[in-house]
């Protein structure tokens, strides 16, 4: 599809909408704005527009719709699949300055925010008031708009679900510039098609989120983690379904392996307690009373040591202990990135029972291809993060091995009933795998939905389908 190349008149009109100080033209656009965190794909927009009001977004979309100019939305740029990369050029809408926290409603227990508010700012704001927004994706400098657009998951999904479960309402600017409200401060909604839920996870292809109403709960008063070493990966992974089906519901169940811990230790320049075992589960509980948490910890500790072959269970119960163990877990992606020249990632999600066999398959593939493939994962929800490392391979060999490897990884995941992406999305770089997984019928349904929202395909073209 061909789009209009911006003229001087277009630039002048767009400049009048936001003020010329809020536009950046091609020669001045920083290279950082041309790619996301993984950088597998990059492209320059013709213009970057920094918006700080919904009406500006609406006016820009009206104009872009009328002139047939492609528009791509960008938050903090922490995505991993190229969803915010303007592959067709045109306008890049920088949403990071549309970042006000509008209202904390204690009666309905909701928080209204603009999309550029960062995840860490939300946590800080609500927790000091005694409230809790539970989704906990690892990248805290991501914007809430980006989290909603990818339906981000995170570590607490086992107990609290994912971003979708915490979005009550959205204000969305459609590709033609019209603004709609979907959902609201309400708890239930049986009113027609779930447009809000279509927007969530649509990676900026259906509409532009300009405001979100988040669900809050009372902040859990206590939280404790357990670091549980096992003799090997098989024992650790096999323990997961048993732990989850016990009578206590953990907040997080993370799988860690010695090699990933080494990367983190090296990257952070500090050591982690009890880091001399091959495989671990890191399990967390939260709750309102100490006695409730103590009981959960005792049940799981007893089960792990006496029935599931754990070497021991170590208690991570203070701020310092939490920080030393969880900082290692939180640094895995950065640490793996720092250990090599280039990475590409596979974010598959599987039924929990297949995590063990799938990781064994990954190890065998690593041997077969002769490339390093470290991984870690949210064992509690079946979402694995698997990283192919380029190390000192030439570009050609790397691309070939990566493509063959990814093909096999996804094929295997699909035979286990897994999906392409658990929480990072499809964006640009995972499109072919989505098509392979869901097939033509579902791709056509998705394309049909896209066409209803965006008949002239100007909003984030070339993504998802």
């Amino acid at each position, binding site marked *: 599809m061909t789009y209009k190349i911006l003229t001087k008149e277009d630039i002048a009109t767009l400049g009048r909408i936001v003020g010329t100080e809020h536009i950046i033209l091609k020669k001045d656009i920083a290279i950082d704005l041309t790619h996301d965190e993984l950088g597998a794909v990059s492209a320059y927009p013709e213009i970057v527009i920094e918006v700080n009001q919904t009406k500006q977004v609406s006016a820009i979309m009206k104009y872009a719709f009328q002139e047939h100019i492609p528009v791509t939305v960008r938050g903090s740029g922490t995505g991993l699949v190229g969803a915010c990369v303007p592959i067709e050029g045109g306008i890049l809408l920088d949403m990071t300055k549309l970042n006000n926290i509008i209202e904390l409603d204690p009666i309905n227990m909701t928080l209204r925010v603009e999309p550029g508010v960062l995840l860490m700012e939300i946590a800080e704001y609500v927790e000091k008031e005694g409230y809790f927004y539970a989704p906990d994706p690892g990248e805290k400098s991501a914007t809430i708009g980006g989290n909603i657009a990818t339906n981000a998951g995170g570590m607490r999904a086992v107990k609290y679900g994912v971003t979708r479960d915490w979005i009550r309402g959205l204000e969305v600017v459609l590709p033609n510039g019209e603004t709609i409200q979907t959902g609201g401060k309400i708890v239930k909604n049986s009113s027609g098609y779930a447009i809000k839920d279509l927007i969530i996870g649509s990676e900026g292809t259906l509409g532009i989120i300009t405001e979100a109403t988040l669900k809050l709960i009372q902040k859990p008063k206590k939280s404790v983690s357990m670091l549980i070493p096992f003799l090997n990966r098989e024992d650790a992974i096999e323990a997961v379904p048993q732990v989850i089906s016990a009578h206590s519901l953990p907040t997080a169940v993370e799988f860690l392996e010695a090699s990933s811990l080494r990367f983190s230790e090296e990257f952070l320049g500090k*050591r982690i307690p*009890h880091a001399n075992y091959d495989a671990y589960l890191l399990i967390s509980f939260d709750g309102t009373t100490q006695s409730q948490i103590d009981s959960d910890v005792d049940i799981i500790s007893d089960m792990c040591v006496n029935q599931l072959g754990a070497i021991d*269970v170590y208690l991570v*119960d203070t701020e*310092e*202990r939490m920080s030393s163990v969880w900082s290692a877990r939180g640094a895995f992606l950065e640490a793996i990135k720092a250990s090599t020249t280039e990475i590409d990632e596979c974010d598959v999600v599987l039924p929990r029972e297949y995590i063990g066999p799938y990781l064994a398959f990954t190890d065998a593939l690593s041997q077969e291809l002769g490339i390093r493939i470290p991984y870690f994962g949210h064992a509690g929800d079946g979402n694995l993060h698997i990283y192919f490392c380029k190390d000192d391979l030439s570009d050609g060999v790397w691309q070939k091995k990566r493509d063959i490897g990814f093909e096999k990884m996804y094929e295997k995941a699909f035979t286990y009933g897994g999906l392409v992406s658990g929480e990072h999305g499809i964006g640009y770089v995972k499109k072919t795998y989505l098509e392979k997984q869901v097939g033509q019928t579902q791709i056509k349904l998705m394309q049909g939905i896209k066409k209803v929202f965006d008949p002239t395909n100007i909003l984030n073209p070339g993504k998802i389908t």
Partner: protein
Amino acid sequence: MNIITCIKQVPASSNVKVDSNTGVLIRESNNVKMNPYDLYGLETAFQIKEMKESVDIHAVTMGPPSAKQVLEEALYMGADEATLVSDRRFAGADVLATSYTLSQLIDHISNYDMIICGKQTTDGDTAQVGPEIAEFLNIPHVPYVVDIIEINRDGIVVKSTYDTYDEIVSVKFPCLLTLDKGSQVPRLPSYKRKQIMKTHQIETITLDDLDDQNPNHYGLNGSPTQVEEIFPPDKRSDSIQIKGSNKEVTKEIMDILAKNRYL
């Protein structure tokens, strides 16, 4: 070899509440933890136990009955024995009276080669209790220890770190060390040890068990200093915005870091 480790229960966060009338810290039983520097002390003791044969680690603390919680934690981490020194007559003790009470307790235990303390607590922050215990016991002490270099039959060689220099010190047993954060990674409380130690009796020692039973040497009566005011540390963060080209911004950041001696 017998090691006594002095530990303390402190508020779990710096957002402590202070009684506005008495100026005394309100200690909430559900918001407490082991003093972080004591974790370095304990870990050092555990590492010595791993290096040498027949090392016995005895954790002690002074405080109300609820302070037993940190002793249990020490047992679950690896201590062999634990004793609480607790008496209403110890209440209101300042640094001197606290040090004296602990020295009396250690005298009572009597059998020790080395005493290990955290360098300071995060609630009192004086870093004086360890050295004062050593003075009362008339034994040498080395503060701010970060590493154990060598253990001999009759003494130990340690590394201490001060603001601008390090010091390697050789000291004979019996001695007292105060531990700062070094290369130790404090181990976590173990469920398996908890199963073994949960029925272990933690002895409580009162004034009546000590050699010096003169109540004027303890608690408020034995404290020549009084706390006038306690308040949480001032939290302040300043931010400045630097504008300019990449080169200018980089230079200015480097200048600020150098000026404030971060480089």
